[in-house]
């Protein structure tokens, strides 16, 4: 890598501690990002963290890189401007389920559609934390919150599903209590060329504690999640004794050794094939029928917006006789007036 620089975790630490609540999932995410960045080899001056508004969006203030704390929902638009202005920068967007799924939904889908090389860290705690406990677009249906005393009415968004509908090319899911998993996936997101969306299942200890308990508790974790890796079989369970197969048009959970199922029957994860419809099924898998899919679910190559844009600039520069603003002024229909005052 051209601007490879050796950095350490320390380079990305701030003097002051992050001001999230004690026990907030945000702290672990921050630590994982600070550990992942040195492994990307990106120069620290070339990294920019952008955010919207919400608990997650305080992120840029807690990491020692260039940072821009924006407006509610608009982080994606700000990040777009930064990346288009200088494609050499490594641009990260820290956002949440309220920020990106509600008020900033439009910018979110268009960022994915355009495929700028920006890494999105979507902190999904399924609640509004900063405004103190109202439901968000990812809050499970029927939840009682401050603004849904009788239970929420609408179906929640699945960020991954939304991303694929928006032509997204990279989607991964991690959980905030697995540092190693986060680190690995953040590095994968950073090295993916194009918009990378990482959904972080994050715990809000104050307003939605244990919302992800079914996948974070030690006893349930192995049975309730499946960590996917490209080229590897879709196995899960404490002893990898369970797996996924395709039956009719659906995914099915099977036990190795039961009903004649062997390891060979288990599906192999292909994250890079953009036509792989299983990405969609994996994203949608829900408890109790299925384990929750974790890891890099989709990672497909596609041209980025900024590469194409700057490519067009180069072609225009090469083809045009107009090289600067003076040339532009004198192009097309111009005429010369001699001094004929009063003729």
């Amino acid at each position: 890598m051209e601007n490879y620089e050796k950095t350490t975790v320390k380079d990305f630490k701030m003097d002051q501690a992050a001001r999230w609540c004690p026990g907030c999932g945000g702290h672990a995410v921050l630590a994982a990002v600070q550990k992942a960045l040195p492994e990307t080899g990106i120069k620290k001056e070339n990294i920019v963290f952008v955010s919207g508004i919400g608990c997650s969006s305080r992120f840029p203030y807690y990491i020692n890189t260039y940072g821009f704390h924006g407006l509610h929902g608009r982080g994606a638009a700000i990040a777009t401007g930064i990346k288009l202005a200088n494609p050499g920068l490594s641009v990260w967007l820290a956002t949440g389920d309220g920020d990106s799924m509600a008020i900033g939904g439009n910018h979110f889908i268009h960022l994915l559609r355009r495929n700028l090389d920006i890494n999105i860290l979507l902190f999904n705690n399924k609640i509004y934390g900063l405004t103190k406990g109202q439901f968000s677009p990812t809050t499970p249906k029927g939840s009682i919150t401050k603004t849904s005393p009788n239970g929420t009415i609408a179906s929640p968004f699945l960020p991954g599903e939304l991303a694929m509908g928006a032509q997204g090319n990279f989607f991964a899911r991690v959980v905030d209590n697995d540092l190693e998993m986060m680190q690995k996936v953040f590095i994968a997101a950073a090295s993916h060329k194009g918009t990378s969306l990482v959904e972080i299942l994050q715990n809000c200890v104050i307003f939605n504690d244990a919302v992800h308990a079914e996948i974070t508790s030690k006893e349930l974790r192995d049975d309730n999640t499946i960590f996917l890796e490209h080229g590897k079989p879709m196995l899960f369970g404490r002893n990898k004794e369970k797996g996924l197969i395709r039956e009719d048009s659906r995914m099915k959970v099977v036990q190795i050794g039961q009903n004649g199922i062997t390891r060979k029957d288990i599906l192999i994860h292909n994250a890079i094939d953009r036509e792989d419809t299983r990405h969609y099924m994996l994203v949608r898998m829900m408890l109790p029928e299925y384990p929750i899919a974790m890891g890099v679910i989709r990672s497909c190559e596609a041209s980025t917006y900024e590469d194409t844009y700057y490519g067009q600039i180069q072609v225009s520069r090469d083809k045009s006789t107009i090289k600067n603003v003076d040339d532009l002024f004198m192009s097309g229909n111009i005429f010369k007036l001699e001094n004929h005052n009063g003729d």
Partner: protein
Amino acid sequence: MKKRVKVIERDDVVVKFAGDSGDGIQLTGAQFSDTSAFIGNDLATFPDYPAEIRAPQGTVEGVSGFQVHIGHKEIQSPGDQADVLVAMNPAALKANMKWVKPGATIIVDISNFDSRHYKRAEYVEDPLGDGSLDDYNVVRAPITEMTRDVVKHKGLDLKTADKTRNQFVAGILFWLFNRDLKIGENFLRDRFRNKPKLIDANIDVLRAGYNYAETVEAIEATYRVKPAEKGAGYYRNMNGNTAIAWGLLAAAEKSRCKLYLGSYPITPASEILQELVKTKNIGTIAFQAEDEIAGVCSAIGASFAGCLGVTTTSGPGLSLKSEGIGLGVITELPLVVVDVQRGGPSTGLPTKTEQSDLLQALYGRHGESPCIVLASSTPANCFDFAYEAARLAIEHMTPVILLSDGYLANGSELWHIPKMSDLPEIKVPRVLDNDPSYKPYNRDPETLARYWAVPGQEGLRHQIGGLEKADVTGEISYDPFNHEIMTLIRREKIDKVVYYIPKQQVIGNPEGDLLVIGWGGTFGTLYTAVKEMQEEGHSISLAQFNYIDPLPYNVPDIFGRFKNIVVCELNLGQFASCLRSKLPQFHYLQFNKIQGLPFLISELKNKFREILGLPQN
């Protein structure tokens, strides 16, 4: 046989083209303006078209118009009334009769003057036969019929064939104004360079129109308007939207900041975006965003990354951008916001002009959120003020709102082409890499602008954003006293801009009976009205404002020298109320118009006469 007709020398002539919005009226108008510019006439234009792309054909509401005022003398307004009217159908005639001078030449497309068209235009009687036009020189030209005849072997379908009609009109005008047909032919070659088949057809029709006018004995006199009295140099015909785009390009090149435009299409500002996407050849980043908010926010992001960030819009879009502009204010980044005003509120009159966003530009944000507010006042000086907006945004690290309007956007005039080397310097408050003294909210003691450190620069990592920051260090601060200090600094920073802008000018005597005040796009008509009254010997002067916030420092001095002050605006008195709050020691009269149309010189003069106690003309 060439017949000889009288040639009348004129200082100026007003021509109005009118027809259905699909008739190519705007193209004919643009072509006539371009050829006028080419032969050196001074000019001002006023396109006026309905909001619908193809409004109901043949109806009065569907009439699209294009007025051109050309002259040998200085031309500042498109003129109140036309000397020549081209009416492509009865509706066009009906809609424009009140804008035609007595005795004017009226060219009608007689092919469309039938009972069907009369009915659509809601004429009870045949207007050509009822004697109502007896005092005019009416030319009944079978434009549609003859055009179809000319192109019948060209293999065009009827629709395309009829589209070439406007060249028949152009041909008549070329003859009427004693112009060289070659100029028109070259215009067509350029216009249709990607459709060679149309070049041929259009040129044939243009010639046919010219020959028709020469042969038919309906036209009593032709006009000659000599080249304008302008300084020597290169010129071009320039409209307000292109001028803004070019002014921004010039400022970007001068400051060596890449130009970044983040915009969303909106009438009547879209042409700025359309113009700038064409300038990739000089490195412009012009981004069509998913909405107005993304336009301004991406521009702020680009500014953070070191570009000249710009967003362009009209009133409804300015409303949507308010929060974003506030972010620009608190992060103290350069940002140019261009608002090409139109009739509001809401969708209002999208294709008509108005000056009703002034208070929104000044005060339309939450919190104490000052920015610089400028207004351009002629199509060509949209260039100067776009450049000025960018200069002030960069040098003072602040959002600048530039107010243009629909009238300036589409109107055009002669533009004296400048050289880049003649444009003023732009000092960029950059920081050197690894500057140990850099703090995000350290300021230039003179301008109070903070310094512009850009991602990618070594040793200058910092975080900014929408939360209030501590003075100097830029750390998040909820301290009440700090907030007050920062609020005062942000205001003072804008106030200090007064030392970096020119004095307010007065046209006419620096003292007298009446000072006419205008701002922005009303300049042309106010100037013409005031000039005419000055020539009639009255004590009247004009102060047209381009700098709204801050106001130039000499304004109170100017106001104090006049017995009466009248503020003329295309709104209910927004600048007047702003002046009343800033300079309450003066008494302000008002003249306001909210019809989606520019002022008329005649109505302005009537008002001024009334104030001066003179009898009405």
